[in-house]
């Protein structure tokens, strides 16, 4: 089975999306299938980073030739990042064509709740229909922003889940419903978690991730800056 993956993170190879995809593809490529003549054909991936927007024509060609596509991206202002929308618009000539690939999606967010991503999920399902692609579903995962700085013990379960997701996808060509549910067990934080975070708020602990970076950059004292307060912009002539 061959899978064409588009990493739609603006951070490209430095992205959290890449980390999740690495675990997914580790599982996916462990699987092999038997060919028509009894030969063993290992699963393969083809990978593109949409952050390289200059290569968009090449990506459209990759999409056109793909058997199955996985488009993964972080949630940006409640939808897909601008580069991903640019890619989607580049696919417009393929609308209504026969033999477009099957397509699945991964949407990850910094917000811990899957609820934030459900709106763009509806868009993605409609996009698959618009392209006449068989819709394979959308993996939604919240709370991903800190995974590059979290200790291994905090990310093991998440990475294992993406590995198993890739493994099952490699076998069946579909997302495993049970793993999908385990990645988004509840749409919003429980009242207890919200209560604890609210209590901890004055201590600054919930903002530790941001404060650490602000201090590292000598910007902590300016964290509440309002650089545009009351300003009137000079609008460039167009």
């Amino acid at each position, binding site marked *: 089975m061959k899978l064409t993956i588009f990493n739609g993170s603006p951070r490209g190879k430095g992205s959290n999306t890449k980390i999740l995809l690495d675990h997914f593809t580790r599982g996916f490529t462990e699987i092999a299938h038997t060919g028509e003549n009894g030969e063993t054909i290992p699963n393969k991936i083809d990978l593109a980073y949409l952050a390289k927007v200059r290569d968009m024509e090449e990506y459209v060609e990759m999409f056109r030739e793909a058997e199955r596509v996985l488009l993964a991206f972080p949630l940006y*202002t409640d*939808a897909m*990042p*601008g580069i991903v*929308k640019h890619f989607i618009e580049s696919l417009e000539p393929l609308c209504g064509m026969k033999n477009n690939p099957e397509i699945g999606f991964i949407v990850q967010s910094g917000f811990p709740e899957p609820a*934030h991503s459900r*709106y763009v999920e509806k*868009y993605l399902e409609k*996009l698959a229909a618009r392209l006449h692609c068989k819709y394979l579903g959308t993996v939604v995962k919240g709370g991903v922003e800190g995974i590059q700085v979290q200790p291994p013990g905090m990310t093991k379960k998440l990475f294992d889940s993406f590995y198993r997701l890739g493994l099952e996808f490699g076998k069946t060509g579909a997302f495993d419903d049970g793993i999908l549910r385990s990645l988004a067990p509840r749409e919003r934080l429980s009242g207890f978690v919200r209560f604890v975070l609210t209590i901890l708020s004055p201590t600054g602990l919930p903002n530790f991730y941001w404060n650490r970076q602000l201090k590292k950059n000598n910007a902590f004292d*300016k964290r509440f800056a309002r650089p545009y307060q009351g300003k009137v912009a000079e609008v460039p002539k167009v």
Partner: protein
Amino acid sequence: MKITILNGNPDGRNTDFDLFIEKLSIFLDKEQKKVRHLKLRGMDIKYCNGCWGCWVKTPGECQFPDDSKTVCEEVINSDLVLFASPMIMGFTSALLKKTMDKLIPLLHPYIEFVRKECHHRKRYDKYPKIGLLLDKTGADEEDVAITVSIFERFALNFKNRLNFVEYTTHPVQEVMNEINNL
């Protein structure tokens, strides 16, 4: 009342869309509204690269120089921002979306609970009202409903609500009425 129109029409050949906005701007101007019409396709707006420099290095502004600073200045000092775009592949244009991504500096990285959900805290005291103007040529009702639902979420994160949705198939006066009723 200060109004900023973010014109996300990427195609200069789509003159009907631009003419609609220009007519709207003239009408608003006649009613003593202060209007800034930003044609985004003529501005140098880079894609957000997700570095979060606008939160942790130069708080409140993108660390890379481009015209998104102009957009941020106009937006945060407006009473109303009209997000305007043709529907392309079932949603507003990539041009408008990349501009929306660059509004992130106007919010604070810290999180608060709103409607029992995590959302970013305010950076400024006041945020503009939000309107949406769509050219829905080539889109169906489901596309419009999905787009509106995403803009309702965007408005919630932008410390306000989506005040109205209008279409370029309607008379300009109808958009005027929506604005005057705010």
